[in-house]
C-alpha cells in the first residue's frame, strides 16, 4: 500500500477540519493519505452530535483566544493544545466500523513502541499506556471514504481543560478533575522528551509499519486547497455549523 504523508504545521481549527474533509472528498484522486498536524491557537473541537453550549464554556474560551470548531466525526469535546493530531483517509475496509478503528490505531500503537512505550487499545476507541488514556480517536465515513482523526497527548493540563469544558455536575467538578488526572497521561508525564517534528516522523513511521505501507510525500493540489478554503469559510466558520445542535 502506498501512503501519502503530509507533514503539516499548526493551524487554526476551521482550517484543520476543512482540510481533513477536503482530503476525504478527494480520496479517489489522492489515495490513502496521512496528515500530521497541530493547532494554533489552541482549540476545542466538539463531536458532530454535541451541543456547543452544553459542552463548552464559550465565554471563557473566547476570553482565552481559543478556537471552537465542530467536527464531522462523533465523539466528545477535545481540548487541542499540547498534542500531535493525525488524520487519515482510506477506502473503507469491509466489516464493522469498530474493527477499522483498531486497524488504524495500530499505527499509533506502533508509534508508541518506537518511543519505547507499550500502549494498548482501551474502551471503544482510545489508546492507553499503563492504564491511562493517551490518545482519543474518531471516525466518519462519507463520500465513499473513511476519515479517522485522533490525538497523541504530548502534555496535559486537566485543570485548564476543565476551566473550558462544562461538566455534567458542577458540584462534582473537583472530584472529576481528580479522577481525570488519574486516568489521563501524556508523553511528558511518561518522561518522553520529544518535539512536534520528531513526533511527526515517529508517527509516520508507526503507520508505515502498521499498514505495511510505502510512504511518499507530494504537495497538495490546488483543487484540494481550494475545496478546503471553501469548506473553511462556508461550513466550519459559520455559526450555523458551530451551533448546529
Amino acid at each position, binding site marked *: 500500500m502506498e501512503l501519502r504523508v503530509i507533514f503539516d504545521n499548526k493551524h487554526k481549527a476551521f482550517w484543520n477540519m476543512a482540510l481533513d474533509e477536503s482530503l476525504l472528498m478527494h480520496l479517489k484522486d489522492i489515495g490513502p493519505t496521512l496528515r500530521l498536524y497541530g493547532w494554533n491557537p489552541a482549540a476545542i473541537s466538539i*463531536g*458532530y*452530535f*454535541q*451541543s456547543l453550549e*452544553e459542552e463548552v464554556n464559550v465565554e471563557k474560551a473566547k476570553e482565552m483566544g481559543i478556537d471552537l470548531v465542530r467536527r*464531522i*466525526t*462523533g*465523539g*466528545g*469535546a477535545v481540548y487541542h493544545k499540547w498534542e500531535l493530531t493525525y488524520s487519515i483517509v482510506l477506502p473503507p475496509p469491509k466489516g*464493522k*466500523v*469498530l474493527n477499522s478503528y483498531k486497524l488504524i490505531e495500530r499505527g499509533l500503537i506502533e508509534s508508541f513502541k518506537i518511543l519505547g512505550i507499550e500502549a494498548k487499545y482501551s474502551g*471503544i*476507541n482510545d489508546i492507553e499506556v499503563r492504564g491511562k488514556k493517551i490518545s482519543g480517536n*474518531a*471516525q*466518519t*465515513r462519507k463520500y465513499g471514504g473513511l476519515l479517522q482523526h485522533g490525538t497523541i497527548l504530548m502534555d496535559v493540563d486537566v485543570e485548564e481543560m476543565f476551566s473550558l469544558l462544562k461538566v*455534567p455536575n458542577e458540584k462534582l467538578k473537583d472530584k472529576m478533575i481528580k479522577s481525570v488526572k488519574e486516568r489521563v497521561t501524556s508523553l511528558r508525564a511518561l518522561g518522553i522528551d520529544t518535539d512536534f517534528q520528531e513526533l511527526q516522523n515517529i508517527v509516520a513511521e508507526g503507520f508505515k509499519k502498521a499498514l505495511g505501507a510505502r510512504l511518499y510525500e507530494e504537495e497538495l493540489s490546488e483543487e484540494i486547497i481550494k475545496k478546503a478554503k471553501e469548506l473553511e469559510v462556508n461550513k466550519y466558520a459559520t455559526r450555523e455549523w458551530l451551533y448546529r*445542535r
Partner: protein
Amino acid sequence: MQRESGYTEGKADFKAGKLIRIRAKFKGDKIEDIKITGDFYIYPEDSIELLEEKLKGIRIEDVEKIINEILKDAEYIGIDTESLSMAVREAWINRN
C-alpha cells in the same frame, strides 16, 4: 417567559457507554420536538437527524418501535437502540 399552554419540556442526560442528552418538548404523551445530542458515534451520522424528525408526533409508548425501525441498518458505538429509548423515556418522565 410564559410557557406555551399544553406543552411540557423534558430533559435527560442518560449515561449509556457514551452520554445521550435528550431535550424534548411534549404535548400530552406525544413528542412535539426533540434534540438528541452527546458524545456517541453512529453510522451513518444523519440517521440521528432523521430519527429526530420521525419522532415528532409520536406517542411515548411508540418511541422504541420508531427507534428500532429507523436505526435498523445503522451501526452505533457507545449507545444502542435500547439506551436511546430509555433516554427519551427519562426525558418524558422528567418533564415539567
